[in-house]
């Protein structure tokens, strides 16, 4: 009896200490990474004779004070969040796909093709939105399934096949806007406007419905990961695929499942970006969200809430610097260096913190 209660108290104390430590790593490392990157950025700006502190003040102002700062951040975070959530699931299972960019593009192309197809484009909003989302999810998933199939059937590396498929998707996008789903009335290569398939802007909030959807998936995915057999399998797979295969499920099936989830999320993000922001597909639609989302997933430590925080943080940096670039004589490459350094320092800091615990 007594030993048990002593055990429990000790356990609680140890637990509390570990919690504190984890908190320090969770909050401290990203904070330090941002600080370090900003310091390097300040040095770069000093070389060019720009007052870094004022620039950083402007960055904050751009996010928190200016009218659209927060809503713009939310909108910019939406695709990163969605893709990042899907990637987090795959990475938990140690299925390191980097094909989200391609899945995102394919989702966008498929959904746009559907929503602008003759006959369909006259549908009313609600069914059009729902079916378009579905098409995007299916298309993204199918694209990801190719990677899974090549992996399970031929043992081809997920990293490499998913990377190669990104190039194929890029070519597909180029063809689609030039020929496949081109707006016949347009002078330049681009699709028709998606019309009623566009997502409504939330009244009073100034962000599109997609953001709300994305945020709503966070607790949902959290629950799925923590409380379902699927989530369990994902974690076992990440811990030891052979153990999974001997006791719980075929690893190839779980690989397929997480890649499908990843593709579905990325595909959905593609549609939501078209429907919430760009309104149609253009050749410039591929801006690398699928790659940035990898960073988001890892910065968020592969946990849904973490991914949300990471997506918002990275977007806030983008938005803030964007505003600052208009007010100060700084070059976009300086900003690019600072943003990349945030990631580099975070990755290094995180690994260091893990090593010392």
């Amino acid at each position: 009896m007594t030993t048990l209660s002593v055990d429990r108290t000790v356990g609680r104390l140890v637990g509390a200490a570990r919690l504190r430590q984890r908190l320090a790593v969770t909050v401290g490392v990203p904070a330090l990474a941002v600080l370090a990157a900003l310091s390097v950025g300040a040095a770069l700006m000093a070389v060019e004779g720009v007052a870094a502190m004022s620039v950083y003040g402007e960055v904050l102002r751009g996010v928190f004070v200016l009218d659209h700062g927060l809503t713009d951040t939310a909108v910019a975070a939406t695709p990163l969040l969605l893709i990042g959530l899907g990637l987090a699931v795959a990475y938990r299972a140690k299925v390191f796909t980097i094909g989200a960019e391609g899945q995102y593009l394919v989702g966008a192309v498929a959904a746009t093709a559907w929503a602008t197809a003759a006959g369909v484009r006259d549908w009313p909003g609600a069914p059009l939105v729902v079916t378009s989302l579905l098409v995007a999810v299916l298309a993204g998933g199918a694209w990801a399934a190719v990677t899974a199939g090549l992996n399970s059937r031929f043992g081809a590396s997920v990293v490499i096949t998913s990377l190669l498929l990104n190039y194929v998707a890029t070519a597909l996008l180029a063809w689609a806007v030039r020929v496949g789903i081109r707006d016949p009335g347009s002078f330049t290569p681009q699709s028709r406007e998606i019309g009623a398939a566009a997502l409504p802007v939330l009244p009073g909030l100034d962000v599109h419905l997609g953001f709300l959807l994305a945020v709503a998936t966070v607790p949902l995915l959290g629950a799925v990961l923590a409380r379902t057999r699927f989530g369990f399998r994902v974690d076992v797979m990440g811990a030891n695929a052979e153990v999974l295969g001997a006791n719980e499920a075929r690893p190839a099936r779980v690989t397929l499942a997480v890649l499908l989830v990843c593709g579905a999320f990325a595909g959905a993000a593609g549609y939501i970006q078209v429907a919430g922001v760009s309104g149609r597909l253009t050749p410039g639609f591929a801006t690398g969200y699928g790659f940035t989302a990898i960073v988001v997933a890892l910065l968020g430590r592969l946990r849904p809430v973490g991914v949300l925080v990471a997506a918002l943080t990275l977007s806030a940096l983008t938005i803030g610097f964007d505003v600052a670039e208009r007010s100060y004589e700084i070059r976009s490459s300086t900003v690019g260096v600072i943003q990349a350094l945030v990631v580099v320092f975070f990755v290094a800091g995180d690994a260091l913190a893990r090593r010392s615990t």
Partner: protein
Amino acid sequence: MDTLLTFATLAAAIRLAVPVAMAALGEVITEKAGVLNLGLEGTMLCGALAGYLATRSSGSPWLGLAAGLAVGAGCGALLAVLMVAVRANQIVTGLAFTLLASSATTYLYERSYTLGQSPPRIERLGMPPLVALVIAVLAAVWFLLNRTTAGLVITATGEAPEAADALGYRVARIRTAATVAGSALGGLAGAMLVCGPLGLFIQNVTAGRGWVALALVVFARWRPELCVLGALLFGVCDAAQLRLQGTAAAVPYEAFLALPYLVTLAALMLRARDSRTPQALAVPYVRGAR
């Protein structure tokens, strides 16, 4: 079709293959030791800028190549600190590095740029010395991996780091050395592109060649001679693509753009089964972890 299978197509394929082959040869060394360097594209970009600036200031493209090699090694050192010493996730480290390199090279290039004056072309090297360089490096890498004790040690480090460790080899040191050496060749590859066929630098001048090199290494099953062969195959695809466009108008040209990647995917289907992926590839080594 008669325009396709000509000596000219082959020559074009070789020219396109040269930088990619060099980068892939470097990556083979790195991956053999168990490090997956997704920062290769960024390393090539840094090497390209170094090659351009060095040639521009010295007038000697050979010095440009040397600068690319040195800067590539520097990139490798930085990457090794992160991926090997600190044991950061190799995938995200590589991606982040490429991101950084893209911005940093733009930043530095812009500093050497005067508006209204197109930046000067640099002295260029002809293809023969570059091809010779690739062959020489191929021979060296092949010899290193297949005929030397060092190659055996590198292989062991990538296959079974705990075994190498148990034998007293310093896994971290070997992986660092392999990353530095591989990245040096990556930097050299970038410089070869700029100091060879191009004679100029522009933003993101490597245009994804580092990623292609990464795919090639897998395609080649970590064998240097197949890397070069694969690069050539890729080059043939590209060269044929550019030639076919004029003749086969019915097929959209985007299909040709995707062709090299589709061919690589197809090749992976044929070869992946018996592939000899280093067992510890992209797995940071921690002594005594189970």
